[in-house]
């Protein structure tokens, strides 16, 4: 498992927006990707990097409450002003990338980062063979 600094993640993900200046030296080893905040609260370990397509302020609240290290917002969506303010207040770095969820996760995995989920839920429906 690799240890990657937030500043390095920004380069890896071709971050397009200027980063907030704090927390860039934070180190990340595990990642949780998804748009369900309850899922993040249930299974992301403290210190995880959150990769999500959501842009509302609750993303930052979730990261703060769950003790996550940084947030990557995929898909090139603009941030709400409320989200930027919340991130500044919580001292959590936010990286915006134009890459898709799939591409961003692929690059993070290739860089040596690994899954930050504490438990993987059983699939409810059997997959077709």
């Amino acid at each position, binding site marked *: 498992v690799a240890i990657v600094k937030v500043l390095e993640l920004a380069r890896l993900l071709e971050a397009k927006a200027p980063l907030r200046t*704090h*927390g860039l*030296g*934070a180190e990340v080893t595990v990642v949780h990707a998804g*748009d*369900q*905040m*309850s*899922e993040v*609260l*249930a299974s992301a370990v*403290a*210190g995880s990097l959150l990769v*999500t397509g*959501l842009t*509302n*302020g*609750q*993303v930052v*609240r*979730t990261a*703060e*409450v*769950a*003790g996550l*290290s940084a947030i990557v917002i995929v898909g090139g969506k603009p941030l*709400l*002003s*409320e989200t930027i*303010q*919340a991130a500044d*207040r*919580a*001292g*959590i770095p936010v990286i915006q990338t134009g890459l898709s969820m799939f591409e961003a996760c692929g690059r993070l995995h290739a860089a040596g980062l690994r899954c930050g989920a504490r438990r993987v*839920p059983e699939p*409810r429906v059997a997959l077709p063979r």
Partner: protein
Amino acid sequence: MSHPPGGPPVSDGEFTKIQELLYELAVAEVMTPRPVTARASDPMESAKALMRTHRISGIPIADGPDLVGILSVEDVIRWLEAGGEAACIEAWMTRPVHTVRADEAAIQAVTKFGRTRVGRLPVLDEAGVLVGIVTPGDIIGRVLRVLDRRYRVDERRVQDQPLEPQEALSEGGVMRVHYQVAARDFERAGAAATGIKRLLGRLGVDAAVTRRVSIAAYEAEMNLAIHTDRGGQLIAEIRPDEISLEAIDEGPGIPDLDRAMTEGFSTAPDWVRALGFGAGMGLNNMKRCGDGFSIRSSPGEGTVVRVSFNLPSLTESAPGIPVSAPLSAQGR
């Protein structure tokens, strides 16, 4: 830079607030419920009278439970210009009808008004039954009322600070903090959890326990914001050996607790899901975080959820001195 069509340019901040609000509000919250309807076989003359009596500009035309058309004031004018001779509504009504669902976000209705140029949209529930009608004026009126209310609330408190507890009592080694959580206030939801997290940090509570308490408080707060009619209270009690959270509301209550406790079961509307919540995991998350969990609910009366957390280590350390180092120190 874009701004609302036809309106004066507004600053980015204001525009964002209005947009956010349009995503937050459900059509059900902006529509006029139980609209006046008529049958396709009714005479045009009676439709004209209905519009005048009720001061409305459009009437959904129903055949039993089915919506078959809509008669607008423009249709009535066309009929009058053509001579206004006795005719059934069916001959002059507009169809097919553009509609919108009650559980969709108000932004969907705004988009449809822009695309279709109609002046009103009948609102259907999940089963396709007519439950209301919405006009651009309804939406503007509602947005202005909400903005006005929030503006006044903002004036009363310093914005962007964690929610201050309404009461903080400390006696006999018990500290009690009490937050009022507003229904449907998504901008503020989570502020009590953040406040509790910072308080526990200041008290030197173990970081892992603090995290579990904060997560449970956050889910409790979300439930109060999403599912209650009038919000509720979140109470945290900190004792030397235990922390407890209690979320209390006055309704509507949970009809089937077993189902509510089933992971993945949720009654949250789509607009809540679009914000990343309402996946049916909240109560389970709270239970998983706590060392003790109980829930009582009765429809029409309300719900009380209690989660408790053991604090074995706090008794051994003096208050104010961290029991263990915070997990991430770089944020300080």
